[in-house]
């Protein structure tokens, strides 16, 4: 394989259940791939260095900071973003709980929190408050003080 000039990478990936075939610059982050190349702007940019979690998506079932994943890396993988969380039948219980508990103020961190929290509840349906806080420590919120976010996750858990 030659690497004389940066070339684009042919990527086939499934995003929110839909297959995408893309040409992604080798250096482009998954976050930019989603937001700029595909147009899914629900995943947000906050810091670009893995410290705020606003860019959280799921890759093959694991939550990751998409700013620190290259778009090229999801070739052959499954990606889930905030846009895939609700279905035509309705909101995910977490989304509903966030609304009822007023767990968002400005809402910019909300997609990241929802995807991250779903990653928790998918594997641990009844986490303790401490486990919720530990799981979500990679997501910064500056508006709410986390209180209502934690309560919303508790409400959505079984």
């Amino acid at each position, binding site marked *: *394989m030659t*690497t004389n*000039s*940066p*070339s684009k*990478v042919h990527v086939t990936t499934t995003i929110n259940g839909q297959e995408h075939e893309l040409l992604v*610059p*080798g*250096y482009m*982050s998954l976050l930019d791939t989603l937001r700029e190349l595909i147009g899914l702007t629900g995943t947000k940019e906050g810091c*670009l*260095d*893995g*410290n705020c*979690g606003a860019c*959280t998506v799921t*890759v093959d079932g*694991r*939550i*990751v*900071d998409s*700013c*620190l*994943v*290259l778009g*090229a*890396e999801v*070739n052959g993988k499954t990606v889930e973003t905030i846009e895939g969380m609700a279905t035509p039948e309705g909101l995910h219980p977490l989304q509903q709980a966030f609304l009822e508990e007023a767990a968002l103020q400005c809402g910019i961190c909300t997609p990241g929190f929802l995807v*991250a929290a779903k*990653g928790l509840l998918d594997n641990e349906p009844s986490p303790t408050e401490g486990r919720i806080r*530990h*799981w979500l*420590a*990679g*997501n910064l919120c500056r508006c709410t003080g986390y209180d209502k976010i934690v309560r919303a996750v508790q409400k959505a858990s079984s």
Partner: protein
Amino acid sequence: MHPFAYVAPSTVAEAVAVLNEHGDRARPLAGGTDLLVKARANVWELDAVVDIKNIPELMTISVNGDGLSMGAGVPCYQVYDNSEVAAQYPGIIDGVSIIGGIQIQSRAGLGGNLCNAAPSGDGIPSLIAYSAIAKIASVNGTREVAVEDFCTGPSRTVLEAGELLVSIDVPKPAANSGAAYTRFIPRNEMDIAVAGVGVFVQLDASGQNFVSGRIALASVGPTPILASAAGDSLAGKPVNDETIAAAASLAKDAATPITDMRGTIDQRKQLVEVLTGRMIKQAVERARG
């Protein structure tokens, strides 16, 4: 950020060929949680990143009678989700559980943590305490380096241009042994260690005396430090507060911290002493089962 190409080889041979071709303008990509940050900050100018995650031997964990072998690309979560590793190598679990947060642990791993060679690398002290060995490949073949010799300065390692870390191998711990790692951070997660201490102890059959100990420190020198005198001081001594305090004091003496935005010299020295005491005690508890 200098625009780079992305290549994803499926063998070690392919990977080292690309790394050899580009020298220090190509780097292996594991979790990306250090590499992409540095590339974006123009700390490195890269022409290529070599994604090693399609190379099977860099992505496997094996636990057997000889010990533990972790591929260089294995992410933290796979280590702590592995019940055998959790049961037999608790000190390593301590380290991988506190690097970053959950999102980071889905991607970052011990291989990258070691190669990034930050003095604060949370994965490294336990590896040193467990006497781990780094296995390195290049176009010229393979070689081994003890983890305590791997880092040579902040962000500097023994890796030459074109070399690739393939795995980290940990010898099977002796009977009646235990290990633990902790660090001090200002918040409860997501921080770089102000000081970190990893301890491995082997006790005698009675569990009342130390046979041997290894103590390693993070964030208190230009590299992680094997505090040999501190660890050696445990050999043959009874397990009691005096022995532990003496070792903790020697660990403090081995620390050569600086004052920076994360902590002061005095604070770091005090933390080393406190955390060493706590980690020896925890390692002893684990050794006693």
